[in-house]
């Protein structure tokens, strides 16, 4: 039973000390900026920052090995795919074509293509430490309150908390249902034919759905009996008090965002192009 849904690693550190709200804001700022900007300088700066943040959090790489390997595999596959799919995309994008060397067939390795793919990978890489940073330094109990802090309606915030609460239970349900069905010949293994597997999975999913629906009734009853939804707002037991550190970090995020956008958009489009003479 996955007692730990997200890989929260409690520790003493500056980052751990920040309130969940702040960390959420950092996370979003980075995500949005990194999403909107294609300016290599900005991206590199973000990468630098996220590594700094990472070292501040005292999280050791060994503690996130699984995720890291996943990222690397993904990056490599994606890099190759991008190239194989269309090696001429970079040149189109940057409007120039500097061949480094010829590979085979229609495949030339061009500066532009490499640069483009470098940027794409950069974007993925940045997203990664920030997400890790967020989930491994923020106590899941703080998620909901943080969300409602940044203006998400508390009903929605609370369903996030409910999701985190019941993932292990549902995972165990799935596990048990699957096992008891397997005992009755419902197999999902590789050897099973594709559509057979489909039919069989329905035999597992239906009990899962039905038990979940009962669950929903029970939970919503007991929540109403404890006056959930009574007022327009609600307080949060797990909310951390904002400190000076929090406010300064938030201020920094805002500045970072504004500056980042300005740099990005100078020259009319968000594409940093070193190839124009």
């Amino acid at each position, binding site marked *: 039973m996955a007692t730990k*849904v*997200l*890989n929260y690693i409690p520790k003493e550190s500056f980052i751990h000390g920040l309130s969940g709200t702040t960390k959420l804001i950092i996370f979003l700022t980075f*995500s949005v900026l990194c*999403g*909107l900007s*294609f300016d290599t300088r900005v991206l590199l700066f973000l990468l630098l920052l996220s590594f700094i943040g990472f070292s501040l959090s005292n999280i050791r790489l060994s503690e*996130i090995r699984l*995720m*890291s390997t*996943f990222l690397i595999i*993904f990056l490599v*596959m*994606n890099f190759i795919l*991008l190239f194989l*799919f*269309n090696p001429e995309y970079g040149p189109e994008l940057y409007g120039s074509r500097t061949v480094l060397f010829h590979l085979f067939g229609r495949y030339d390795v061009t500066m532009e293509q490499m640069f483009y793919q470098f940027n*794409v990978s950069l*974007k*993925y890489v940045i997203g*990664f430490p920030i*997400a*890790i940073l*967020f*989930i491994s330094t923020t106590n899941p109990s703080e998620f909901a309150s943080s969300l409602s802090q940044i203006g998400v309606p508390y*009903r*929605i915030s*609370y*369903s*996030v*908390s*409910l*999701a*985190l609460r*019941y*993932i292990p*239970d*549902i*995972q165990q349900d*799935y596990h048990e249902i699957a096992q008891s069905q397997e005992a009755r010949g419902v197999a999902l293994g590789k050897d099973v034919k594709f559509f057979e597997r*489909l*039919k069989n*999975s*329905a035999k597992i*999913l*239906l009990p*899962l*759905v*039905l038990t*979940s*629906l009962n669950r*929903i*009734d029970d*939970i*919503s009853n007991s*929540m*109403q009996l404890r006056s*959930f*939804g009574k007022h327009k707002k609600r307080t949060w037991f797990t909310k951390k008090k904002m400190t000076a550190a929090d406010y300064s970090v938030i201020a920094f995020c805002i500045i970072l965002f504004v500056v980042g956008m300005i740099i990005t958009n100078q020259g009319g489009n968000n*594409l940093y192009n070193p190839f124009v003479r």
Partner: protein
Amino acid sequence: MKNDSVKKVVATGIGAALFFVLARFVAIPSGIPNTNITFQYAIQAVFAVLYGPVVGCLSGFIGHVLCDMSWGGVWWSWAFATAVYGLVVGLFAKKINVKDGYFAKKEISTFVLANLLANAVAWLLIAPVGDIVIYKEDAKLVFTQGLVAGLGDFLFAVVLGGLLLFGYSKTVAKTGSLDKE
């Protein structure tokens, strides 16, 4: 009505949890990177039909983001696509009244239609456009990916989701007309 709104909050949470569990532990890779054909969309469709567009949308979105986070790195363009998918299917909820125990021709065809539309919007519009805007990815590439994902999810959501809704409708079926044989 109050009760309903609380039920929807819970349904969103549990729906997201189901989405997470299925997306995380019951995945069939389709061969194309960051494109997994999985069961979660069937469940999301079922929830969208049972609880309406808001639940359909949010449960999927929350589930998707949490799942991405557990791997590191959130895939926003696809998370939004998931959300839109649930939303669109949910818009047809009123027309598919399984809650009263009906899931016959009319409902089924509506369900298929809803999924067709929803998948089209999600995987041929939102996701690719998102990828193009964010990653400046090659339009050809992202649309191919979208097409693969869309087709897969459509197939799974319709077949599995259909089976599930059918099973569900049976459990609420009226039992008055029964006599022992």
